[in-house]
């Protein structure tokens, strides 16, 4: 734990950078949040993005984005929400124009979201985040101690902000699926902190001679290989999603990847360090123990069949 200060400074810097990009660049929100129309169309051969852009712009839509999606034959067209225009008809109009240009075009997917729905999704997303944070804090405070719950939440919100920072920096599209990934990561990396806290509590019971810093060091070391292996396994799954899931799952998997990588770091170096700064003591944890009378050297301690 002698390096705690160094790690906390690194965290603080990354965190500050993430906040900086979030405020200056902002998130590139998907239509689900902003409202608007997204169309994915497929061509028989490589699509001429420039021509598609011209065709769509000619229809009088301002701010049209056209880009390749996944393969060179698929094109993604984004139309912002327009006030006063019956947006539900937009996609039909665009598609008819594209069809007139090149009959081989096929509609693969259309999404239209009205502006009022977008706002609701954004508030619902924030509510979900608040509920996750509150739920986890209450549970940890009940199960461990308030210092742990504060430490865990700070460490993991720091992950969330860093993920968002990445999305802001690279201007990756932030969609509902990414939001789901962010919340899943929050639950997942808290679980990492829980494993370490669990071990800290156990160590307080077992090794009465050691001081708090030694206890925490021991807990981190003891859980280290497990941390790397589980995160590795989860990362394998996420990587497989990133490789095989196609463009629809791309950003979802990306958010998870960043979240998992920073989750390891934050649980190990941030959560425990914050808990230490907050001054956890043996008495915080051992008082409510049902097992404290057990002989720590008894291999059958607590065993039931």
């Amino acid at each position, binding site marked *: 734990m002698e390096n705690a200060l160094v790690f906390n400074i690194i965290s603080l810097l990354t965190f500050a950078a993430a906040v900086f990009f979030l405020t200056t660049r902002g998130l590139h929100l998907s239509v689900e949040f902003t409202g608007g129309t997204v169309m994915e169309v497929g061509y028989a051969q490589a699509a001429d993005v420039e021509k598609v852009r011209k065709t769509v712009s000619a229809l009088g839509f301002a701010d049209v984005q056209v880009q390749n999606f996944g393969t060179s034959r698929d094109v993604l067209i984004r139309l912002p929400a327009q006030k006063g225009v019956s947006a539900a008809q937009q996609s039909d109009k665009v598609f008819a124009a594209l069809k007139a240009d090149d009959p081989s075009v096929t509609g693969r997917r259309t999404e239209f979201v009205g502006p009022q729905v977008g706002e609701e999704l954004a508030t619902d997303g924030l509510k979900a985040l608040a509920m*996750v944070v509150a739920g986890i804090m209450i549970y940890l405070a009940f199960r461990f101690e308030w210092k742990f719950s504060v430490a865990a939440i700070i460490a993991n919100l720091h992950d969330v902000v860093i993920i968002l920072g990445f999305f802001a920096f690279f201007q990756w599209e932030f969609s509902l699926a990414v939001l789901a990934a962010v919340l899943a990561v929050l639950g997942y990396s808290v679980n990492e902190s829980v494993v370490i806290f669990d071990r800290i509590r156990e160590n307080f019971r077992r090794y009465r001679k050691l001081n708090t810093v030694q206890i925490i060091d021991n807990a981190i070391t003891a859980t280290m290989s497990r941390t790397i292996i589980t995160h590795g396994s989860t990362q394998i799954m996420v990587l497989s999603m990133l490789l095989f899931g196609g463009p629809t799952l791309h950003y979802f998997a990306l958010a998870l990847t960043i979240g998992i990588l920073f989750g390891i770091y934050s649980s190990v170096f941030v959560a425990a360090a914050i808990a230490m700064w907050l001054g956890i003591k043996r008495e915080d944890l051992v008082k409510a123990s049902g097992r404290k009378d057990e002989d720590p050297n008894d291999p059958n301690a607590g065993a039931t069949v």
Partner: protein
Amino acid sequence: MNRYPVWKYAIIVIALLVGVIYTLPNFFGEAPAVQVSPGKPTIKVDSGTQTRIEQALAAAGIKPVSTEFENGSIKVRLVSEDVQLKAKDAIQKALVPDPNDASYVVALNLLSASPRWLSALRAAPMYLGLDLRGGVHFLLQVDMQAALSKKAESLAGDLRTTLREKNVRHGGIERNGQAIEVRFRDRQTLEAAKAVLADQFPDLQEVDAPEGSDFKLTATIKPEAARKVQEQALKQNMVTLHNRINELGVAEPVIQQQGLDRIVVELPGVQDTAKAKDILGRTATLEVRMVDESGEARAAELGSGPVPFGDEKFLERNGQAVVVKKQVILTGDNLTDAQPGFDNQTQEPAVHLTLDAKGSRIFKDVTRDNVGKRMAILLFEKGKGEVVTAPVIRSEIGGGRVQISGRMTTTEANDVALLLRAGSLAAPMEIIEEFTIGPTLGAENISKGFHSVAWGFAVICAFMAVYYMLFGLFSGLALAVNLLLLVAVLSMLQATLTLPGMAAMALALGMAIDSNVLINERVREELRNGASPQAAINAGYERAWGTIFDSNITTLIAGLALLAFGSGPVRGFAVVHVIGILTSMFSAVFFSRGLVNLWYGRKKKLKTVSIGTVWRPEPDGAITKAE
């Protein structure tokens, strides 16, 4: 200590058995079928229809795999997709001779191809979401303000009539938004009007204020009455949508209420969004006209003469022709409500109509002049008219309250009321969200989701087996059981599987292995501390359990929050995520322990455990630490 009693193994075996049975249908895939369901509320599909379908298919030389009658619709299984199209045409020709008047909906569908004994156990494959099977999703917002304004308008009309009847002289009634404003010259009439309101208008609440020398009474719809109006408008619109979607020939449309003022419509397999939008956005109109009762018209009704000049011939829902005059007496705009009920005197089922002020006046005049004659109420949809009912006028009807009764069953009264409301009341709707997914994209999404899960699973299992040897193999097996149970539970719940759901499945597996890693690491650690193999296994499982439980609870909290606040794709993700966590607690702890116990439990003198390399401490290290 590492032995399970028989009942624990019994639980494992039963869970596996149930898991396999309910997962199985997903492997059989789906077979092409044609589904026939009623196109109108009055038409029922029965065994007679089934016979007609079978005859039609036999005549076309098509041999169906089976025909089933289930939940009010008939499903015909067929060998291939080519035959499916032919069979659809043949059935369509036999059952629906006139495409403009479709009594039956004949739609292409896919049915689970699992064997009969599985279907008998109610084991069905997971329901695929639109992003996996292709189709259209709409979210419609019902304009509740319009519905309330309409209600206020009709109440204003009623109030005008009632005040006149009671001889309360007012200085003008006006609707201002959703409020009704009435002016009075003096306090006395104001009080009289208030008495009338309290007596006859339970849906209104009023406040009065002096305005110059006059008094102004402002009546608004009570919140509970407003809620009822909104509920009714929503229900009404859903019924109307149902009727319209039947025309699209969609096998399993989803029409659901979302929140207080929204309707979700999902049409799997539909690609023509323009047509779908057109049909959803259409409005029906209602007209009241007189029946022509001349001899010529009678002849025309029987089909033995031409339709007289100035008349039109329409069909009643039972197929009987009615010749009506072209002149329109009233339109649906004048009808404010239609409710099924009972006649006060005869207790016969009846439909009660409420007309607005203008409608009541016209209706009174017309009925006075036409006692003993018939009038027809017609419903026009996409330019095609149909006689909803054609009752005889028994007496002059004033006050705007009309009752249609006689020779009706309760169901018929309900249907008629519904049809009348469908033509008049539905509040306007707006599409606020739309997703269309092409069928090829759906198929691609399935294979992508499948590959993500499969490759991730394979790599994890391989890694576990290499790193933890036999224990890793057990962990891999436990993970497989987790996947099996997860799919089984999802199939049992008939939850909708979407691409985010498949991602959640992959993620759930990635997280579930965490529990096994925790256990295995703990067992290794106990061995490292010098515990005997049997004791190490026991302590490893026991000690890891608390941690596994805690960490799963926090993940579960995140999952539940997503479930509570998520919509659409997020919800699909959350359902799988939450179920995955629950099944993982069973498989990773209970099941894997069962395997370990089965393998090692009986070996009393166990010397080594196959769990990979266990780093041993130096003999002088009393407490094992890496430092």
